[in-house]
């Protein structure tokens, strides 16, 4: 351990609940992950698994009530940011912690020019006057490859295309040169070519500015393209973590295997796509044991009543198959792989 933190962001045992009239939803349960500096960590999972709630609670964006962070800590370069008062939190978010959202059209104020929306961050966090801020805005727009920045800056969001707006969002979140950028499904709403452009842009910016990125997505293609490390989420828990190679080539959780098989590839042309039968558990009443028990083809008696711990270290999986007493199984190889 050196005095300089190895991790840009470290989240430990995060748990988030929502109280609704139907009961309490345990949306995030005991989530921990680490983001290495200058790398991209992808959080993957199907919709409703809690990935967005996880990052929004880091940013202090979940409405409270009904939301509630019941436990956990989040260290941004060693400083605790979870549970801060709004005024304290505002010294981090927008400044050292940037965020971009899925639907850029609705995420931008419709009655404010995009130039003003970007400049606002600069004026608030970097104490610039309007004029200098405007110069910086034009530079940021150019950086995110928007042509004619001077003209575009004076336009309103509805005058832009979806891909352009996502660039604007990126420009806005990078205005204060943050350490960490959280991208919540930044390309889901875009078509494939635009998606590729945005991803390339993010990667270039990462190289240029040494940015650490948390990328939320349900698209394994995006993961393969962007991520250094991956965390797979299922039913409010992280079920497998590891490097991108670990996840793709040495999957050690049945759910990750299922996800991978459900992804179309050029080999699947001949055969049918495999799907994971069933649907995720109801988080109003999360199951006692493993969340994946009902859908798992390798399920064992132990899985029904006992929630598995994470086995493994850098490459870890939340699955009883990796217990020392478990019968021999093909997935066990992955964790014991010498490269791990």
């Amino acid at each position: 351990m050196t005095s300089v933190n190895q991790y840009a962001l470290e989240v430990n045992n995060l748990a988030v609940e929502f109280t609704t009239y139907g009961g309490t939803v345990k949306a995030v349960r005991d989530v921990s992950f680490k983001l290495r500096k200058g790398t991209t960590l992808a959080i993957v999972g199907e919709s409703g698994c809690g990935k967005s709630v996880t990052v929004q609670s880091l940013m202090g964006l979940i409405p409270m009530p009904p939301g509630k962070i019941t436990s956990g800590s989040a260290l941004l370069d060693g400083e605790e940011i979870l549970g801060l008062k709004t005024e304290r939190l505002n010294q981090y978010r927008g400044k050292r912690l940037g965020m971009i959202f899925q639907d850029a059209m609705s995420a931008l104020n419709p009655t404010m020019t995009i130039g003003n929306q970007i400049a606002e961050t600069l004026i608030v966090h970097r104490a610039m006057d309007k004029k200098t801020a405007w110069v910086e805005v034009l530079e940021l727009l150019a950086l995110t490859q928007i042509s004619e920045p001077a003209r575009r800056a004076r336009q309103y969001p509805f005058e832009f295309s979806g891909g352009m707006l996502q660039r604007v969002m990126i420009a806005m979140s990078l205005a204060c040169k943050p350490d960490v950028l959280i991208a919540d499904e930044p390309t889901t709403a875009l078509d494939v070519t635009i998606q590729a452009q945005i991803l390339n842009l993010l990667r270039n910016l990462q190289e240029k500015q040494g940015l650490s990125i948390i990328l939320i997505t349900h698209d394994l293609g995006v993961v393969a393209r962007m991520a250094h490390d991956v965390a797979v989420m299922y039913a409010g828990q992280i079920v497998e973590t590891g490097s991108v190679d670990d996840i793709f080539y040495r999957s050690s959780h049945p759910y990750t295997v299922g996800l991978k098989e459900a992804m179309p590839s050029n080999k699947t042309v001949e055969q049918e796509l495999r799907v994971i039968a069933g649907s995720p558990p109801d988080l109003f009443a999360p199951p006692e044991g493993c969340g994946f028990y009902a859908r798992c083809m390798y399920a064992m008696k132990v899985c029904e009543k006992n929630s598995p711990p994470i086995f493994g270290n850098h490459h870890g999986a939340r699955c009883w198959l990796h217990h020392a007493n478990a019968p021999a199984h093909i997935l066990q190889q992955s964790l014991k792989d010498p490269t791990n």
Partner: protein
Amino acid sequence: MNKAFAPALADFAPAPARQKMDTISRPSLSYWQDAWQRLKINKRALVSLYLVLGLLIFTLLGPILWNYDPALQDLDSISQAPSFSTTALFVDDPGIWEGVLLQESSTLPPVTGQSAVLGATRLNIEGTATTQYVRLSWEPVEGGAYYLVYRNDHQPESAEDLGLPLGQTLTARELSFEDRLQLQPQTYYYTIIASGGLREASDFATEAVELERAITVSQALERNLPATPGTRVELSAHPFGTDYLGRDLLARTMMGAQVSLFIGIAAPFIFVLLGVIYGGVSGYFGGKIDLLMMRFAEFVIALPFLLFMILFRIGFGIGPGESGIFPMLVALVLLSWPNVARIVRGQVLQLREEAFVQAARLLGANPAYLIFRHMIPNTMGLILVTLTFAIPMAIFTEAFLSFIGMGVAPPTPSWGSMSNEGIRSMLSTPHELLFPAFFISVTVLAFNLLGDGLRDALDSRMRSRE
């Protein structure tokens, strides 16, 4: 592995076949069931639903339970405050009271002019004080040129508190006063002040008098009541009091409810239906037809609403002071449908583009099937909400027009026309205005809150997030 749990070998046997994977743990509810569930947890909406039911019972069953002729005038008990007390004392006809005069033989106390200090005097009540009459007499006061009589509802604290005098004597010889002015069965505070001409006394005598309700023998005979002076009789109670013609306000409020709610509910039902048909046709066909139909609807919306309500009334040949319940209904329908049409059209236009309607069309569904199976069920919620909000609007319109004398005219009671009559005597007998106004307010409030609740319950997209 932070947990103490250590699984045994046997635990790692394959799990038995599990239950069907796609079970949904919560019960599934139909659209209307779900809406009802949501409405039930909305306390305000539920209370307003009960209020609406209560109002309907009041209107429909009320006149059966409270069988009292709303048109019956009783000039002996006009503008009576609400009360349940019903007993009255039979008294002889009051006749003429000679009063108390200072004896001729005794000399008048000298009038000492400006410097005179005018003292107080003792007050006596002659006979029994009833709502028929109160007879006062008093001792002469030295230096009094005449006497002033005051009547108050409360114990006066100072001379400034007395207000305007009820009456005065002409001379210093008269030592009595008979009060027969709109007496109510309550406690009055009578005050006598002797006046020296230019100055009045600073101290005075006050007597609290409790009045009993009484009717005279001749009045009893008019009502075919067997009357013996000195006995008591049960009279009809007026829980809401009476109006300026002595008519029972409870009966009139019930009767007025029938008129107000008839207009307030019948008119919205008709114009919502009309609007649904118009808007549905316009939205379903779209294109040029839609454009033309909506232009026309916009023209009708542009008509100044209340002015045209009045104009139609005149057009139907109804003069001032005449009741026009039916013309008001027609005018309301003629002027109010376009707003509903616009809302329904918007919904139908939106539905037409919905994937499930497109899919049904692709599968060869005919227009009738589309309309009855897809369009109408999916607009029902919106229509119901629109209807609920249209009712208070119509009730307000009726009240407003009747209030300015352009709607239901006396003697037909409606809440609006009753308010119109009540406002004239608002300062002295506020209950004549308050009861009809209260009912208008509660009805409008109940329907508004019910509409809010329905809107929240029926469509999450329309939620007001209150």
